[in-house]
């Protein structure tokens, strides 16, 4: 079913909307949640919470890009849940990704006057100046939290090339944020 019709089901308060969302994006959402949470039970709960979140948000909201809208909710909920998970349950992969990101911009002590949303817009602006594959590798890693192995396979790179690419992009992003006034 196309996204417009699914959104219409939400507006009609038809519970079929959730089923259609699950059919179309369930696997994608589960993938994101599993990348972050590293276990099926928590991921499943996060995906279900995603559907509740979508149900509660539409209406009034009418997303232009339904797929990204759903992914974003899953990602947010999964990262929130990760904060409360015991350390030994967390995946080493995702912890490493978060550490790598923390080295770029750790917390609110830095640039407290700039909102996360504004920083997000700056990151988007920066990513648009990067080559397509560099941009997508970065997003696959730090938005979807794909493993290095999966990213390398997806784009036909070696793992070391993928790591190097990410390394350079993080450094460039950090330089860019400093240039844009996000003091670090």
């Amino acid at each position, binding site marked *: 079913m196309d996204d417009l019709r699914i959104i219409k089901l939400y507006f009609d308060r038809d519970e079929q909307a959730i089923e259609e969302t699950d059919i179309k994006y369930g696997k*994608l959402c589960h993938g994101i949640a599993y990348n972050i949470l590293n276990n099926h039970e928590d991921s499943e709960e996060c995906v279900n919470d995603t559907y509740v979140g979508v149900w509660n948000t539409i209406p009034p909201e009418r*997303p*232009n*890009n339904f*797929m*990204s*809208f759903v*992914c*974003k909710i899953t*990602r*947010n909920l999964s*990262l*929130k849940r*990760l*904060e409360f998970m015991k*350390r030994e349950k*967390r995946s080493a992969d995702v912890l490493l990704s*978060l550490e790598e*990101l*923390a080295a*770029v*911009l*750790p*917390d*609110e002590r*830095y640039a407290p006057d700039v909102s*996360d*949303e504004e*920083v*997000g*817009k700056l*990151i*988007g602006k920066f*990513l*648009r100046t990067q*080559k*397509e*594959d560099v*941009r*997508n590798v970065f*997003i*696959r890693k*730090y*938005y*979807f939290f794909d493993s290095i192995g999966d990213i390398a396979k*997806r*784009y*036909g790179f*070696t793992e*070391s*090339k993928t790591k*190097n690419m990410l*390394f*350079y992009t993080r*450094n460039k992003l950090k330089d860019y944020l400093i240039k844009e006034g996000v003091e670090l």
Partner: protein
Amino acid sequence: MKTPRIANAIGHIDDDLVSGAVGSKKKKKNVWVKWGSLAACFAVLVIAGAAVLPSRLEGNITHRGTDGRYKDYHIAGESAIVWPWEYLTVYEKYTNVEIDGMEYLGKGRTVSEALVGESIGSYAMIGYDKINHGKKYTAKFEAYALKDIAQSQFIAVKMEDSYYVFQSNEYAPPGTLGELMDVIDLSKVVELSRFSENGDNPSSNHFELSNDDYIWEVLADCRSASFVEDQTWMAGDRDYLSFTITSEALGVYKVALYVTEDGYLWTNAFNWQYLFHIGEEAASKIINYAKENSMEAEYEPYINVVVGTIMEITEEYILVDDSVLCKNPADGITYKVMLNDLRISRYVDYGVIQAGNTVQISYHGEINENNDNTIEGAISASKATISDGDVFIPE
């Protein structure tokens, strides 16, 4: 554990960026680019035995070894080492430069001073020590225009007394062959000499052309030949000549230029594949001229390789004995690989290879048979293991 702020911020990037990455996958790229930019960490892949035999044995090559001296084997694998900063060559340390908002990437190859034009200023370049927490280094280098090439395409950067070629990283293909000729004087920077029929492999027929003036005359008449935007184009079953190009000014080593009988000119000399439709008439003029005015030549492998066991390592050289590959170990030959270049000496200094290891050494140039089978131009080494007659190079 608190989620780092930037992880939350990334959640706010625009929807189209997210959906763009969802559907993205491997792009069909010019597969030859990898070969063209072999400079730094070298990667070698499945090569049949004959293609990697030392050049001293040329003439005796068969597909299964040299006069039956070698066992049946093949080499496969890849080696990529992240070197500490002090083991990097200068062109590996500083790989890109931004000039007037345009990014240029190093090709890892030097160009003679005679081909270098006027200075275009001094620019800061940034390098990162990947091992040492990404420690940032900045150095200033002088950039120069290259003769016969527009600055928008290629430049040279002087680093440690050598000039290195850098190419613009922007994909902006010319609309026609004429437009390409306007920014790069191809007849001056590219020599069309060695070529083969229908691909460059050991079983093709190979030729050498002594003068390429006529080909450039024909191409000069094809200025209006249009650029064909087709990343999936392959020579496939077409009949074609494959010229091998090494150009100092373009910073390319043994890349290819095809002229197909059905009228296409294809090359991978510019990082991306460039394809022009020059028409059947021009193509047949070039093909006929090349065939009628060339001499048969021997096959030249892309890169020369010796495989063997390290017998001894000194400060100046390593001794590699290839008996391990021989059916009869007594037929083994010992090669003296000189450690006169950082690209090879770092493998020893950093402890990547040690006495007793089976290794694959890649080199440019010739083996000096009159002087202990000396190899002067070694550029990389990889550890190899042999099992059941096959050599595997572990990742």
